[in-house]
């Protein structure tokens, strides 16, 4: 394992320190417990939007703290949910009197820790709501699983919720819009290589020389099945087909197409995938109204890609287009 880290057990803290120094104009980093808030705090009277989860998905979530998106982010250890007291501290720091929306990716650990934090926040008289993101179509949402995971679609939910809060919506309104965004978004990912958690020191799974793993999550966990690597078109088709199987796309539906790199994928390859996925959506009768291409929701240095499709309406488009100024997303 070769990584640009010193002590693996301090990796998250060391990285956050550098992040805070590099973006001091936009964020403030708090240590013990670790959390990140907007420089200057949530504007008074505005609903605070807070998210978090295990580290290793950078820039998610801390990179999206800033005007128009998140008011605080809570990074756990690598691929490990943050603890309730950490979440509570971030919630208290972000609350500006109008309540706090918690955006939680659907993993048992995140759900349990945020749930506990919400109970603690209630005891401290901070009003919270929470929205689960579960966009990963690789997992069947059934009695036999912990439910679909939250993956790259989280970015969409965070952007929409942050924009709603920024325009002055109430906690109930922001929550409802975040729910709507969460139910409009679906994703499917593939890994070309595994990733290595620093304190584990070896890859999270073993892939053959020309195998790819279809239906991966974002925690280096193995996926749905393995196939022999077979070029961008074949791989992209599998991803987009899975998404289209799950989502109902009316003829002429307006969509956001988000092609996300898993951390070690060159930008050039993401654009190749984007071109293929876009053509498939167009062939399916959809209108690709908005696009995002980049490595935003990652699994450390994993090579791979996920394709996210969100069905848009006028309001979601307005919220997506609203200005955002954060370390990792700005327009």
């Amino acid at each position: 394992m070769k990584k640009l880290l010193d002590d693996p057990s301090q990796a998250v803290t060391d990285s956050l320190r550098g992040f805070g120094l590099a973006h001091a104009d936009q964020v403030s980093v708090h240590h013990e417990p670790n959390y990140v808030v907007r420089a200057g705090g949530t504007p008074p009277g505005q609903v605070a939007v807070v998210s978090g989860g295990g580290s290793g998905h950078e820039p998610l979530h801390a990179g999206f703290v800033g005007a128009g998106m998140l008011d605080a982010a809570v990074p756990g250890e690598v691929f490990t949910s943050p603890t309730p007291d950490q979440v509570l501290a971030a919630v208290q720091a972000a609350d500006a009197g109008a309540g706090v929306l918690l955006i939680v990716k659907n993993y048992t650990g995140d759900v349990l820790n945020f749930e506990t934090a919400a109970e603690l926040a209630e005891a401290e008289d901070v009003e919270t709501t929470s929205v689960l993101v579960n966009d990963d179509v690789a997992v069947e949402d059934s009695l036999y699983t912990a439910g679909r995971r939250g993956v790259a679609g989280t970015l969409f939910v965070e952007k929409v919720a942050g924009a709603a809060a920024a325009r002055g919506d109430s906690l109930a309104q922001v929550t409802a819009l975040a729910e709507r965004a969460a139910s409009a978004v679906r994703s499917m990912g593939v890994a070309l290589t595994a990733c290595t958690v620093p304190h584990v020191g070896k890859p999270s799974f073993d892939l053959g020389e020309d195998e790819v793993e279809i239906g991966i999550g974002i925690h280096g966990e193995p996926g749905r099945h393995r196939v022999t690597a077979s070029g961008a078109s074949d791989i992209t088709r599998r991803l987009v087909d899975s998404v289209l199987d799950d989502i109902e796309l009316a003829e002429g539906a307006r969509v956001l197409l988000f092609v996300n790199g898993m951390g070690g994928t060159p930008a050039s390859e993401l654009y190749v995938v984007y071109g293929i996925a876009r053509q498939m959506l167009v062939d399916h009768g959809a209108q690709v109204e908005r696009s995002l291409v980049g490595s935003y929701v990652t699994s450390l240095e994993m090579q791979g890609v996920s394709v996210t499709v969100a069905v848009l309406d006028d309001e979601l488009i307005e919220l997506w287009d609203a200005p955002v100024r954060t370390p990792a997303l700005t327009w």
Partner: protein
Amino acid sequence: MRQAASDLKAGRDELTELDRRIGDGDHGSNMDRGFTAVVAKLDDAGSPETVGQVLKLVATTLMSTVGGASGPLYGTAFLRASKVVDRATVDPACLVSLAEAATEGIVARGRAHVGEKTMIDAWQPAVEAAEQAAGSGDVLDVLRAAAEAAEAGAVATIPLVATKGRASYLGERSAGTEDPGARSTAMLLAAAVTAAEEVAG
């Protein structure tokens, strides 16, 4: 607790390997981080008066250092257990109600039942074995019975298909690997036995 911490440190790579296969490979370091912190907290705390106080300290420390799914689950378990003993020592009956409370806490948080390939598959048989042993044996007998049952319960998760937690994403592919949380439960109870044996001399 110190025994648990050192056993978990020793078992760290095993837990991590199990979690690497059917989860995300962090269970070993999560437990190690948590119990290392527990030992530090106990060192600071001097000698708490009751077993309940010790358990509560363990609970809050695990809750604030482990993270992941196992953090709130073990945290809740120890918290519930801490509420049933306000004495300096335990007798067999007390031990049983402690184990029952812990298991109920895990079920309340995680909503898992026996057979879903989680730590419950070690806790539940441990509780039942403890209940049985409490009729005839002393504290050490009860602990041994619980630990043996947890061990058997953990091993029995190997062929199961997970329907709760991260391993459930793998579906059929989760069969064939022991559940890391059930294994760490077995380790914890085995550590309790070792510690109790030492006290007993």
